[in-house]
């Protein structure tokens, strides 16, 4: 099979940060070859200076996260035939939202710092006197979702919030937090939820863009894990927080304008008196404008605004009776 690869190159010893070079390679590959097979062939036969990480070749070690045609993937489980027509060019870049060390190799230090931030280890009050913890098998199978995470960083690469807000704990680390919140053997559930609810960059900062669910090669579905933790946090009585205010502001905005007022939402969620957070938000606002993503300051009204308001009033009156 004939394939063309366009590979992003960066050498910190000869190039300034932010610069890159594109190298193109044309090669003949086995019909079921993966993108990783192609990159290894380049490294072994054409250009020994190409830097990339890989180990298992079997989608289990989490080393080989890269962007293929703009989307984060494990290149060892991405078959060439599945991402490009015969002869079409495949574009390979390092993952996003991670600093680049060289070529396709990124720094995962911030990634693992975030993981560390959620106290990622079991914290039981006491161990059983004898044998294992006796718990229901369903509760363990439930945890498999998040235990499947191989820390590849693909979700972080494509997370739209991390792109503008470095403080966000992010999908992978939050999925890891969920794994302990949901573990019946752990006795810090409430403390963990309280922390995730209040901390800067916690569970309320996700915009539900779905990207992490889409790109995760292991079906961890981090966004779903985050949403579950929001419910759990509220249920556990965490009300007077940005999260709860956010939900409130959300419904106020929809009721009044028939749509979401994102700028107000952010400010109200932080609380009008939370100066440091407001300064942060201003910064995000500026970055968003630069990236063309700032929501309008004065929200447009949805066309059938009145209808929405009426729906709201009806739901509220029904709830009150």
């Amino acid at each position, binding site marked *: 099979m004939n394939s063309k690869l366009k590979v992003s190159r960066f*050498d*910190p*010893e000869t190039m300034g940060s932010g610069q890159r070079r594109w190298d193109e390679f044309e090669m003949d590959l*086995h019909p*079921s070859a*993966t993108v990783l097979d192609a990159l290894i062939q380049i*490294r*072994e*036969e054409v*250009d*020994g*200076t190409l*830097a*990339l*990480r*890989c*180990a*298992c*070749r*079997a*989608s*289990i*070690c*989490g*080393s080989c996260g890269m962007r293929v045609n703009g989307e984060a993937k494990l290149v060892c*489980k991405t*078959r060439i035939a599945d991402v490009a027509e015969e002869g079409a060019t495949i574009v390979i870049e390092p993952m996003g939202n991670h600093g680049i*060390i*060289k*070529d396709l*190799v990124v720094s*995962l230090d911030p990634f*693992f710092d975030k*993981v*560390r931030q959620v106290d*990622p*280890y*079991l914290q*039981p009050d006491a*161990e*059983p006197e*004898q*044998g*294992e*913890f*006796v*718990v*229901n*098998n369903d509760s*363990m*199978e439930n*945890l*498999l979702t998040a*235990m*499947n995470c*191989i*820390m590849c960083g693909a979700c972080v690469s494509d997370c739209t919030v991390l792109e503008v807000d470095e403080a966000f704990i992010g999908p992978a680390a939050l999925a890891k937090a969920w794994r302990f919140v949901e*573990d019946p*053997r752990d006795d810090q559930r409430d403390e963990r939820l309280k922390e995730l609810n209040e901390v800067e960059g916690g569970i309320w900062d996700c915009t539900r863009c779905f990207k992490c669910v889409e790109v995760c090669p292991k079906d961890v579905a981090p966004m779903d894990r985050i949403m579950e933790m929001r419910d759990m946090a509220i249920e556990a009585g965490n009300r007077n927080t940005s999260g709860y205010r956010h939900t409130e502001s959300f419904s106020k905005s929809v009721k009044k304008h028939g749509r979401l007022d994102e700028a107000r939402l952010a400010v109200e969620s932080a609380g009008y008196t939370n100066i440091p957070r407001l300064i942060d938000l201003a910064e995000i606002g500026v970055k968003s404008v630069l990236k063309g993503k700032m929501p309008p300051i004065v929200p447009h009204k949805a066309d059938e605004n009145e209808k929405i308001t009426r729906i709201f009033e009806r739901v509220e009156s029904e709830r009150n009776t």
Partner: protein
Amino acid sequence: MYKHDVLIIGAGLAGLRAAVEATRLGLDVAVISKVHPVRSHSNAAQGGINAPLTDRGDDWEGHALDTIKGSDYLADQDAVEIMSSEAGDAVIELERMGVIFSRGEDGRLGTRRFGGQLVARTFFVGAITGSAILHVLYEQALKHGLNVYEEWFVTDLIIEDGRCVGVVALDIKTGTLHSIWAKTVIMAAGGAGRVFEPSTNAIICTGDGLALAWRAGVPMMDMEMVQYHPTTLARTGILLSEAARGEGAYLLNSEGDRFMLKYAPQYEELASRDVVSRSEQTEINEGRGIDGNVLLDLRHLGREFIEDRLGYLQEVAVEFLGIDLAEQPVPVRPGVHYIMGGIKTDVDGATVVPGLYAAGECANVSVHGANRLGANSLLDTVVFGRRSAVHAAEYIKSVDAGSGSDEHLNATKARIQSLMDREPNENWAAVRNYMANEMTKGIGVFRDQASMEGAKEAIRNVNERMPKIAIQNKGKVFNTDLIFTLEMEFMADVGNAIVHSALTRKESRGAHFRTDITERDDENWLKHTLAYHDPDNEDGVRVETSPVTITKWEPVKRVY
């Protein structure tokens, strides 16, 4: 200057288990690994970990006997007794650290069956057991604030006055060399599957630890014992776990027959691995294969069961072959998987070099002998990883740190500079691929004098070409070209030890099956082979032998 009580080379299961133990003992511990800990190859283990849990009626002596029989009586029985009797506590401890092992109805740990055993005593997490345990050990490492030299590559051991007192290592991200001093070093650098092609092993399994210890004077024991796993994918060598057969999958030949009923009437598909691989190869050689494969059939298990209990296998089959296991059987063949041989240690992980311990796949205690049972390797890593840390903690009480001199560092710097300065000539990849293919040809499921001689010649050829390997990449940052060249040197040493050990053993036992001498010979060969690094000898190797420790299980003929 970097300095610790205990320095552990490797952050797989063996290394991290040792590290957790040494940290709990209050020592200053560091781990050094050429990849981030969770990338270590232990994450690839799929099927499970064996443990006879005596509190629910299993008997550790039963597991010991299965292990010894599996080893074709080459395992040292004192070591097996320790592994089997400590297994229960080791697995319970992993559970308490947070591993989400599968459970039964009663909420207690559940099991599946594995090869070479009639009792179901393999504990598991779906088909991601290794990954699930490795991530939990890494969590424990974070909890204890373990020091990790991450993406640092060990190039040399520092030996002073006959003692191992540290390492010289390359920080891959910056390209700088450093010495790290330690009162004791635990080698937990994993296997060497890349000496062969194809192999189930990761690209990082290049036998570095074996070669480093060997160069320091420790013998490699029973290196001819290379395990071929019965169910690997043809082109890539990627593994489909024995858990498939443990859960009831069949092996079929081109005529649709379950041929294992013929070769192993009692254990069927779950005979020990050497037996199943030989049976498959016989079917293939006699014309009942399909393009050099046999078929692994899971269809009768049903989609729901496959997806629940063997989800990762389904992922591999779908992603790499486009085969849905619930609909179609998958072609598999024997492939290189594990190296039973390794750095000779005693039951506390100690080697003949004071201060140097070894544990995990790079070590040979010996509990696997001539053939390892599936799910016994993870057990080996945690039991002997822990024991080597405990013993090392005792050892350091009576020793002081090394000199701290720059002499070793400077020697390595000079050596690497001369590598970098070579004129363009050979390329490491061409040499590696040649060697690995020749090794698979010569040291196969079946071997004979001629094939092994062929592999020996190939290694000689490799050793001649090696000084000509030039490094294309002249940079410092993330120079994998340099790393692979250094790994190539390690692999050539391992290959050399394998072919000379194989040529020495004049019998068939376990994984070492010679078509020119087909019988086991207990009278002359109930012995370990010990390959020493010896520059004065031909090919730089000297092979000696040593007796096998028998405690209470006299060798008998092996029938499955």
